[in-house]
């Protein structure tokens, strides 16, 4: 759009025609107060806070609905406007109790700020206020009616943003209220409730303290927390989240999660899990001391030294006596990249085995191989915000990758993107789709064959074959197409789909997996046949310096088969629960020495000989890679006495095995620790020096527990991980492309086992989150709702 030039408060501003005045002012650093306006949602003009004076217009105008025009002359702050805003505030405060000292929003409330600014705390209105008690609408959403200023943000957020439409507005005038979708008279406890996705987006959007969060309400104040920017530990989207943390007697507790600064690819979005399911970290069931199995079969708490020494000694003996190939290693989907890399390096160079695997939730090996040699063909998650056309084959983002679904809905709503959905189920995103293709049960293979040109497969792909033709033609006609692929597509099917997509010049691909670092686990080579960066074990290329075995190891299933045959001397499991996931008979491990890093007494931990209490992803630093291949920074937020990071524990076990730690973790390299001057005239020197070192990957790594030392190695050796260090450290995402060699073996087993997680489950971890359990039970319709009335 052409630019127009106009004046606000005497300042000349230029903005594209059609920009809303409020946005143009914001970009120019002029703040206009707004309650109902919310970027990305439809315009409401309900609050009248944003009024400004525009020359030649008879009355004050709402800046949130007025597009800028050439030559416009605007005043944003005059006595007239202040008077109008004050009067508006008095009306908005008609039912409001001004109970800021006890309100959750106090200290970060737009209404509070404006009331201070315009001085409308004393009202001219003498009518009695309409009071209603606080209501619990669901385990996570509470409503305090008197604080509501009827801005409709929550209603629009839930409808347009979430496509749930669980909130409405009822009655009229000063008795109008926001109402949830289960009316009191229809609910078993005669109280109004919400039947919805429980995302808490409405709470986040609420400019005041009317909607409050079950996790956070009345717990603390915004200024009493530390705020740590990190990545959600749940699904494969990798939403950025700011965790509010406060100290407790045994560490630091997370009390809140949101992304209101919109700093990540998820914008302001978090789903139920991201917003509430951090509470597993505070669970009293956490293991907080190392445990070693005694001769009588019981587990005994021991010192760290004893646990590491025992694990190290046994592993060394078994390796030396029975060979590395008798040992299996299983890594988790929520480790950092550095930990995953370190684990496979530990397995391959210290234990001497390629028997290494993880719970695979998508076939990234085939994905990387099918795109070998291609440039710019993998999609970043950012592309889901802006691509003009998107095809989703398989998967159900609404449940499995809620952040992706959020971005796609916004793309359709704001950019009129064309969404094509092909699925065996009627997934919810079909409601935004331009075309929905209902596939026959298990029809993905037939679909890819059909797309590859095998017309005979059409009838196996879909009952309506003419719809199939139309669908294919519409997709092929797109010039820029994002192809999102669900984990149902693997191996040959996945390859065929990608080959079809490659015939569309502007197509980009992404394969969706299930956990925070599922992609990282695959990229970092937690696989029996692939080294990091999908380098085949048999042809280690850059990794030749590790002198690791070059024969493919045993995969997840083969490891347990070997155990069943009595051929597995030891099993090393890091934050994974294969026993329950793969329904392994515990008896197969009876003669295997099992070391487990875990937070909880999972089915797998119960069989361990040594249990090392682990920190979770919210309690450590490093990097993770989301489904799309976007690398992001993880920072330590929570803390718990008695646990250690997987990184440290691997290094310590390796040390007790007698490994050369400098070879395992290349620390102590880089410059000598010349920190520059920290005081006096040259004091800025230290900071500048540090920035320079960081930018050049030369910051001193002084300890073997410094995971950045491993990041240096990842950057040096892993194809595709040519990352920008400062970009990572400053909390920005960056897209990485796997640079695989094309497929070597044709008959590789993909072993993909989708997690089957929904909006309210998250693998084994989710079972230990009280919030997820509550919401599951609630949405499962048990009449469990117990109303806690507001603190007196």
């Amino acid at each position: 759009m052409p630019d127009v030039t106009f004046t606000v408060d005497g300042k000349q501003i230029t903005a594209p025609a059609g920009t809303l005045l409020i946005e143009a002012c914001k970009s120019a650093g002029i703040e206009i107060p707004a309650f109902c306006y919310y970027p990305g949602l439809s315009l409401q003009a309900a609050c009248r806070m944003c009024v400004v004076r525009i020359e030649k217009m008879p009355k004050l105008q709402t800046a949130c609905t007025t597009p800028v025009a050439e030559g416009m002359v605007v005043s944003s702050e005059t006595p007239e406007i202040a008077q109008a805003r004050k009067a508006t505030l008095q009306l908005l405060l008609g039912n409001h109790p001004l109970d800021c000292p006890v309100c959750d929003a106090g200290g970060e409330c737009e209404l509070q700020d404006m009331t201070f600014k315009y001085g409308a705390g004393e009202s001219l209105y003498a009518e009695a206020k309409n009071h209603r008690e606080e209501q619990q609408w669901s385990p996570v959403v509470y409503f305090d009616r008197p604080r509501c200023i009827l801005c409709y943000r929550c209603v629009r957020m839930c409808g347009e943003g979430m496509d749930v439409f669980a909130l409405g507005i009822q009655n009229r005038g000063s008795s109008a209220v926001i109402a949830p979708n289960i009316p009191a008279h229809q609910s078993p406890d005669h109280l109004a409730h919400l039947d919805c996705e429980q995302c808490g987006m409405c709470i986040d959007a609420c400019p005041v303290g009317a909607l409050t969060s079950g996790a956070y309400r009345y717990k603390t104040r915004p200024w009493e927390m530390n705020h740590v920017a990190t990545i959600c530990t749940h699904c494969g989207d990798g939403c950025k989240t700011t965790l509010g943390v406060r100290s407790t007697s045994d560490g630091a507790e997370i009390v809140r999660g949101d992304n209101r600064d919109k700093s990540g690819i998820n914008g302001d979005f978090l789903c139920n899990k991201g917003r509430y399911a951090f509470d597993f970290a505070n669970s009293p069931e956490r293991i907080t001391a190392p445990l070693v199995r005694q001769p009588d079969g019981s587990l005994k708490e021991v010192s760290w030294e004893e646990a590491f020494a025992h694990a190290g000694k046994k592993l060394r003996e078994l390796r030396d006596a029975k060979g590395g190939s008798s040992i299996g290693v299983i890594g988790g989907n929520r480790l950092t990249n550095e930990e995953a890399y370190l684990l496979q390096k530990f397995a391959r160079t210290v234990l001497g085995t390629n028997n290494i695997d993880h719970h695979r939730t998508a076939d990234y090996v085939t994905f990387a191989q099918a795109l070998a040699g291609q440039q710019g063909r993998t999609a970043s998650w950012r592309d889901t915000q802006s691509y003009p056309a998107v095809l989703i084959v398989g998967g159900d983002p609404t449940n499995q990758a809620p952040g992706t679904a959020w971005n796609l809905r916004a793309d359709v709503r704001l950019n009129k993107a064309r969404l094509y959905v092909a699925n065996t189920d009627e997934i919810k995103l079909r409601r935004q789709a331009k075309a929905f293709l209902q596939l026959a049960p298990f029809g993905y293979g037939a679909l890819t064959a059909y797309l590859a040109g095998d017309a005979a497969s059409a009838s196996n792909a879909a009952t309506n074959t003419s719809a199939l033709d139309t669908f294919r033609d519409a997709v092929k006609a797109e010039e820029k197409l994002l192809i999102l692929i669900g984990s149902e597509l693997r191996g040959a099917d996945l390859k065929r789909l990608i080959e079809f997509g490659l015939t569309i010049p502007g197509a980009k691909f992404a394969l969706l997996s299930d956990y925070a670092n599922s992609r990282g686990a695959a990229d970092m080579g937690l696989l029996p046949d692939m080294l990091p960066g999908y380098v085949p074990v048999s042809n280690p290329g850059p990794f030749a310096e590790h002198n690791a075995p070059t024969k493919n190891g045993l995969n997840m299933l083969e490891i347990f088969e070997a155990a069943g045959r009595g051929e597995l001397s030891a099993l090393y499991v890091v934050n994974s629960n294969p026993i329950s996931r793969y329904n392994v008979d515990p008896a197969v491990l009876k003669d295997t020495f099992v070391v487990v890093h875990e937070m909880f007494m999972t089915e797998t931990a119960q069989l361990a000989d040594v249990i090392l209490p682990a920190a979770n992803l919210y309690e450590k630093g490093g990097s993770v890679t989301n489904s799309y291949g976007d690398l992001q920074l993880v920072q330590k937020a929570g803390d718990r006495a008695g646990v250690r990071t997987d990184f440290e524990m691997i290094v310590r076990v390796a040390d007790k095995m007698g490994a050369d730690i400098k070879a395992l973790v290349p620390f102590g390299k880089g410059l000598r620790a010349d920190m520059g001057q920290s005081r006096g005239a040259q004091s800025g020197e230290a900071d500048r020096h540090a920035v320079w070192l960081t930018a050049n990957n030369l910051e001193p790594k002084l300890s073997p527990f410094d995971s950045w030392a491993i990041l240096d190695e990842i950057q040096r050796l892993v194809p595709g991980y040519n990352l920008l260090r400062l970009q990572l450290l400053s909390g920005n995402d960056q897209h990485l492309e796997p640079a695989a060699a094309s497929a070597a073996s044709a008959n590789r087993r993909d072993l993909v086992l989708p997690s089957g997680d929904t909006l309210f489950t998250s693998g084994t971890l989710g079972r230990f989150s009280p919030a997820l359990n509550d919401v599951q039970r609630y949405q499962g319709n048990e009449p469990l709702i117990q109303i806690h009335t507001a603190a007196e």
Partner: protein
Amino acid sequence: MSTITNSIFSPETAARFDRLVTLYPVKRSALVPMLLYAQDEVGYVSDAVVTEIAERLDLLELDVRNVLSYYSMLRTKPAGKYNVQVCTNISCMLRGGYEILDHCKHKLGIGHKEVTADKVFSLEEVECIGACCWAPAMQVNYDFHDNLTTVKVDEILATYRAGQGKDVK
């Protein structure tokens, strides 16, 4: 064509609704008239009415309730056979609307939005009913009565009680 199989409405009303949805560019525009006609037939807007109307207009029940709760003429509880609506808005107030209301309350022994035990009368205080020139005024079901005095109200109520009033429900 109606896709509703087990309509709770009479065949005539159901047919009327089938047509109503075709009259507007957007289906949901039929919501307010539909609610009114449904109330006339059923006596009030019951949960079943909300459900069927939502289905007919492809709305969520929440949407129907949002609109329903906005209008004071729509009620979610049964009224009496004769619903007495007394205006107390400005013109009527100046000419004794509140006395009329108080008189009705006393006479019928019920308050605002209440129903007599025998379910014959219900009472409501309402905003302007557009009969200001002849204030004070009241409406019984769809029947207007103006230039009221307490004596006249007694007569009107008696007529209805005797079953002789117009009943244009």
